[in-house]
């Protein structure tokens, strides 16, 4: 998966080359995120990182209230 992610990132950069520095920075930031997320999935890095945690904390409790009311 990591190899796939790296190759795909390079290819995606070549398909549409950013024109300004802002686009370049943003594109590279997203591509680095892709590689980071792939590393996390493939090598089980940062196992305690719960991206959905904050959403679950705020909105999960709200939805539970809705279910309780109904």
């Amino acid at each position, binding site marked *: *998966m990591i190899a*796939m*992610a790296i190759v*795909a*990132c390079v*290819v*995606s*950069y070549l*398909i*549409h080359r*950013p*024109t*300004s520095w*802002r*686009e370049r920075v*943003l*594109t590279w930031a*997203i*591509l680095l*995120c*892709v*590689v980071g*997320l*792939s590393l*996390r*999935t493939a090598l089980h890095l940062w196992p305690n990182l719960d*991206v*959905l945690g904050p*959403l*679950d904390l*705020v*909105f*999960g409790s*709200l*939805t*539970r209230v*809705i*279910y309780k009311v*109904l």
Partner: protein
Amino acid sequence: MEKERISSTQLVVLLIWTTLGTGIVTIPYVLGLFTVRDGWISTLLSSAGGLLVTAVAWLYIRMLEMRRLTEALLRTFGPVVGRALGLWVVFWIWISNCTVLRELELFVGNTILPRTPEYVIGFLASTTFAYAVYMGVEVLARTGEFILPLSAVVGPVLIMLSLQYMDIHEMMPVLADGWSPVLRGAVVPALAYGMEFGIVLQYLHAVNHRQSVLGSLVMSTGLVSVVLTIVVAITVGVTGHSVSYLNYPVLEMVRTIRVGRFLERIDTLYVMAVMSTIFIKLGAFHYAWCEGMKDIFGLSSHRTLAVPGALSVWAGSLAVFAKAGTVEHFIITDVPSYFVFTVLVIPAVTALAAWWKQRRTHRGAPRRNVA
């Protein structure tokens, strides 16, 4: 300035596939957790979600005309607060797309490609919708129209053939357990899938006729509600109470279809139709994400992030939803309130803020000396 435009028919088709794509796979399963016999009433009530979105869209269009939501946030709240809210909206689109892609990976992995790694399935799907989005909104809408005949023929045929196994008594007695399980069952269809119609606010700039947007929303809501009600009623009628234990009840219902020894295992057609519609859904959300990022970061075109963004959805779907159970938990527990806040509250507040700003500007303007 984008020159591509889509017609109201294309918008209706896009909205229908956006909701039905994963809705037809997940809603019968979610309903089975709350109610079986009265599931069809829950899906009828789900139209409330689409109608709420229509009401907010009416208010929004009245105040902000045909501006995209992310564009309107920047204009109304300024660069700092507007960008922060815009980032919230694009994160919502991104996480929704990750959920949809993960559902696709699980569905395809469980049904037709059990030995293929899920990341390969996800990668193939993401490159496909990235290409469609890269080509523009018109290509995406035409693809939606292209698969319409497939679903319009396959759907009714599957429904007709499965009617022979349907037992109406599986739905009797009606409301035996009262309204509580029915209303709980309607929460996810109405407040999660119904809210997905809100993606239309990111498409306003691309629609040909301003007047047709609200009509398209009402029509899509009605059609989706009717289709889901029919599908759920037949699924319950065919599979009975085992709906509560099945991950893909509609698939099981289709698998039972057999015409003598001549025609069987036509679930392949169902899987093809589901995959096509999920592809449209992924594309529709991803295009909205690309347009949102274009507004927030001042990019030259939505194409700049079409491919990197699709790759981020692919990697995110596996990283955020590592276990299959996480997707179900997220959809049932978090999504209803999260979507209501993002799709109803944020656009409504933006519209009211724009109205207040306009009013203040009119008051501050120097009065004409009539005398």
